[in-house]
């Protein structure tokens, strides 16, 4: 099992390293990730939200509903932790 897992790991790693050959270079200012949407956030964030920190303005203003959904995730995780760890007297066994 350990040998099989190691082989699968090495194959997956080789595939991913092959995939990085098409990635943009480290620190490239014209990479696709930073040339389509993000310039709009950088230039317009002060006019739209009057917040100097762009990460904050995207998190709390542009993507406010996403952050609201995040709190739902945290709430669900907390509730499920309580429900899993709660000791019930009827089915109590160690």
């Amino acid at each position, binding site marked *: *099992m*350990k040998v099989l*897992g*190691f082989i*699968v*790991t*090495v194959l*997956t*790693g080789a595939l*991913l*390293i092959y995939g*990085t*050959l098409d*990635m*943009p*270079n*480290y*620190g*490239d*200012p014209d*990479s696709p*990730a*930073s040339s389509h*949407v*993000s*310039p709009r*956030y*950088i*230039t317009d*964030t*002060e*006019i739209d939200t*009057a917040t*100097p*920190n*762009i*990460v904050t303005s*995207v*998190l709390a203003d542009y*993507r406010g509903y*996403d*952050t609201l959904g*995040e709190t739902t*995730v*945290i709430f*669900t*995780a*907390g509730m*499920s*932790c309580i429900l*899993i*760890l709660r000791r019930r007297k009827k089915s109590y*066994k*160690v």
Partner: protein
Amino acid sequence: MLEFIISKYNFWIYIILMMIGFYAMIAKTNLVKKIIGMNIFQTAIILFFVSTAYKSDATLPILLNSQGHGAGHHAAEQVIEVSQYINPLPHVLMLTAIVVMVATLGVALAIVIRVYRDYGTLNEDEIIKAIK
């Protein structure tokens, strides 16, 4: 050749880190070690995304000389150079991913505590034997 390695080595480091976590997830039999592997895997993904945000010779995505609420009136006067700030979007998405990571870690550890309470072991093979 050296330039090629320098322009891609960050991705390779994160792939090696990710594969360490992947191996722990599929080959270890201890459930806590599997969870640690999952955490390493997620951390590698977060590092990968943050590294795609980097632009050389750029600073943090916090505006210099910000005018706050007065910015709307003087917008034409101040020109913001996009290449001066690194890409803020991967940072925001990885904040969301960190939240999901903490949530999954918490629930997974709670399930492991529950399994240990019921079966008295964390070894996967012994648990499967006990179920049968």
